[in-house]
C-alpha cells in the first residue's frame, strides 16, 4: 500500500504525537488546545496548498495541449491557453485559485469548464462511504481479533492471528481486489464486479452492493495493520502495573482487561487510526481503479493524465485537508480520552 503501515506501535503514544517533550506546554484547558491546534491546522492547510500548487507546475504539458489535441494549429493552442487562463503568471494563478478556495469555490475544470466543487462533492459520495466503510470494517475485525491475539499471544490461536496479519500486510491491495472480484463477482455473481450505479445513491441497495467488495479490499490491509496495533497495545496494557493493581483488588483477568485495559489500549489505536487515514485514502486510489469506481482517487489519476490542474489541486487539497482535519480530530479525541492531556487544572 502507499502509506505507512509500518508505523511502530509506540507512535500512538502522546509523547510521539508531535507534542513538546514537556507536557505542560502542550496542555492547558481544552479551549486553548483547540484554538492552538486550529491555528496550526490553518497554517498546515496553507502550506499544503502551496505545496500542491508548486508541485503541479512541474508537470510538462498543460490542459491547452489536451484540449487542442493533434489537429489544432499552434496559434489555436495559444488561444485556448489564454482562454483557460493557463498563460497567466504563477502567483496570479495561485492567488486566483486560493482566493476561490477560501470562499468554498474550487474553480472550474480547464477541460470541461465544470465546477470542481460540485464534482468533488459528487466523488466524495463514493469515496467517503468507501473509506468510512473500510475503516468500520477494519475496526470491527481488527479490534476483537487484536485483543484476542493479545490475550492468547502464547497460544496457537494468537500466534496464528499474528501470522495472518503479517500475511495481510504483505499482499498488494489490488491483488486482493482482483481476487475478490474473480471469486465473488465473476464466479459466484454475488456482487457487482465494479462500477457504481449511474444514478448514485438513488438506489441505496445497489450503491452499497457496489461498495462492498472495494471496501472489503481496503479493509483487509487496514485490518492487518490495525490488528497488529491493537494486539501490541493490548499486550502493553496487559502488563501495565495498574492491571496488576486491578487484579490485586479481585478482578479476574478478563474483568481487568475490560474495565481498565481497553480504554488505555484504545489510546494508541485511536492515534494510529488518524495516521492511517492517509494510507486509507491512498489505498482508495488503487482500489477505485481496480473496481472502476467513480471516486476521488480514480478522478485524480485521470485528471493528472489530462493536466486538469485546477481539479487536481482541488482534489489533493481536499485529501490533504481531510487527513489534517482527521489528525486534528484524533488529537482532540485523544485529549478527551486521556485526562492527562486535558490539562484540567
Amino acid at each position, binding site marked *: *500500500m*502507499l*502509506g*505507512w503501515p*509500518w*508505523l*511502530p506501535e509506540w*507512535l500512538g*503514544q502522546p509523547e510521539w504525537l*508531535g507534542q513538546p*517533550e514537556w*507536557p*505542560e506546554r502542550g*496542555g492547558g484547558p481544552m479551549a486553548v488546545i483547540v484554538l492552538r491546534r486550529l491555528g496550526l491546522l490553518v*497554517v*498546515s492547510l496553507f502550506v*499544503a496548498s502551496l*505545496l*500542491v500548487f508548486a*508541485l*503541479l507546475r*512541474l508537470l*510538462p*504539458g498543460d490542459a491547452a495541449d489536451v484540449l487542442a489535441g493533434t489537429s489544432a494549429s499552434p496559434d489555436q493552442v495559444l488561444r485556448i491557453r489564454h482562454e483557460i487562463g493557463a498563460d497567466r503568471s504563477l502567483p496570479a494563478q495561485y492567488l486566483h485559485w486560493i482566493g476561490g478556495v477560501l470562499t468554498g469555490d474550487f474553480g472550474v475544470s480547464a477541460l470541461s469548464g465544470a465546477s470542481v466543487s460540485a464534482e468533488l462533492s459528487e466523488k466524495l459520495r463514493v469515496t467517503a462511504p468507501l473509506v468510512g466503510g473500510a475503516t468500520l470494517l477494519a475496526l470491527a475485525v481488527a479490534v476483537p481479533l487484536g485483543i484476542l491475539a493479545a490475550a492468547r*499471544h*502464547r497460544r496457537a490461536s494468537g500466534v496464528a492471528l*499474528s*501470522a495472518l496479519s*503479517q*500475511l495481510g*500486510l*504483505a*499482499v*498488494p*491491495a*489490488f*491483488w486482493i481486489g*482482483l481476487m475478490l472480484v*474473480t471469486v465473488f463477482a465473476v464466479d459466484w455473481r454475488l456482487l457487482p464486479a465494479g462500477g457504481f450505479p449511474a444514478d448514485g445513491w438513488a438506489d441505496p441497495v445497489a450503491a452499497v452492493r457496489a461498495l462492498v467488495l472495494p471496501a472489503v479490499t481496503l479493509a483487509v490491509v487496514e485490518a492487518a495493520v490495525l490488528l*497488529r496495533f491493537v494486539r501490541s497495545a493490548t*499486550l*502493553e496494557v496487559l*502488563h501495565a*502495573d495498574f492491571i496488576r493493581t486491578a487484579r490485586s483488588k479481585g478482578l479476574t483477568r478478563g474483568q481487568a482487561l475490560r474495565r481498565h485495559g481497553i480504554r488505555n489500549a484504545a489510546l494508541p489505536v485511536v492515534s494510529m487510526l488518524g495516521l492511517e487515514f*492517509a494510507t486509507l485514502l*491512498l489505498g482508495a*486510489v*488503487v482500489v477505485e*481503479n481496480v473496481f472502476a469506481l467513480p471516486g476521488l482517487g480514480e478522478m*485524480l489519476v485521470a485528471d*493528472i493524465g489530462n493536466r486538469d490542474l485546477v481539479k*487536481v489541486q482541488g482534489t*489533493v487539497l481536499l*485529501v*490533504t485537508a481531510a*487527513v*489534517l482535519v482527521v*489528525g486534528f480530530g484524533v488529537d482532540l479525541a485523544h485529549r478527551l480520552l486521556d485526562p*492527562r*492531556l486535558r490539562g484540567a487544572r
Partner: protein
Amino acid sequence: MTGSVGALVRGVWGSRSGRLGAVLSGLVVVAAVVSLVWTPYDPSRVDPAASWAPVGTAHWFGADRLGRDLFSQVLVGARTTLVVAVAATAIAAAVGVGLALLATLPPRLVAEGVAHLVDVLLAFPVLLLAMVLAAVYGGSRWTAIVAIGVGAGIGLGRVTRGEVRRVLGADYVLAARAAGAGTGRIVRRHVLPNIAPTVWVQLSLILGLSVLTEAALSYLGFGTPPPTPSWGRMLSELQPYLTLRPLTLLWPGLAVVLTVLGFNLLGDGLREAGDPRLRERPAGGSDGAPRTAAAATTPASTTPAPPAPAPMAAVAPTAGSAPRTRLRWVRGEGRA
C-alpha cells in the same frame, strides 16, 4: 556500535520471525544475484511461438502472451525489486534521519517549522509525487524510487523525530554536554547510534513497503517501465488474464508476498533483537539494580507525567542474566 552489530545479527537469527525473514530476504538476494549471471532466457525477448507457453521444462514458470519466459522475468524482477527497494530505502533513510535531526536540533524556530512541515507532508499523497515525477521525467525506475523514498522518508522522519528527541533528552546526552561535546559530536556519537536500532527496524519495513508501493505504482502505470522486468509490472500486465491463466499471475504475486513478508519479518526480528525499551534498561547488576529514582518520577507538582515506564525494581533480573524476559514478550511480535 560495531560491537552490537554482531549481537543484533545473533538476535535476529535467534528469533523465529527474524530467522524466517532472513531466509526469505536471502532468497530474493540470491535470485537477484543469480539473474546477473544467468537466466534461462533473455527476459524481455519476445517469442511469438512461445506465447502462453505452459509450465514445463522449456519454461519453468511458463511464458506470457509475448512469449517471454516468466521464470527469467521473475528472476530479473528480483533484481529490479531489490534495486528499487534498496535505493528507495536508502533515500528514505537519508530523508528521514535528516528531517528528524532538523526537526529536533536547534535553532528552535527551524526545528518547529520542520516538525510541522513533516506533519503536513505526512498528509500529502505520495502517489501524486510519483505521478508528477513520472510525468516530468518519464516513468523510470528512478522516479518510482525517489517518490517511494521521499514518501517513506517523511514517515520515517516522523517516527525518528520521536526517537531523536528521546535520545536528546537522555541523561547521557546531558552528560556529554557537560563533558564538553558539541552538537556535531552528540549527533554522531550519541544520537545516530542510539536511534539506529529503531531506524533499522523501520528501514526493513520500508523495504517491504517499497516492494508493495512499486507494485501499486506499476499497477496504476507509474512504475518501472519496460523493458526492465519488474514484479509489479508483471502483475499489472498479466492481471487481465487472471481468470484465464491464473498460474502466470501466481509467480510474481508469490514473489511479492514472500519478499514483503521476508522484509517485514526481518523487521520484527530486528525489533525483538534490539527493542529500544529493552536496550535502554539493560540487566542490572547484583550490587544495585537501578531503581527508578524516587524523586525523578514523582514530582510533588501536578506534572501530568507521560506514561511512566514500569518500575525497574519489580523485574530486575539476577546478576549477569539475560535481559528481562517480561518486556521481551510484551514488545515482541509473534512469539510463542
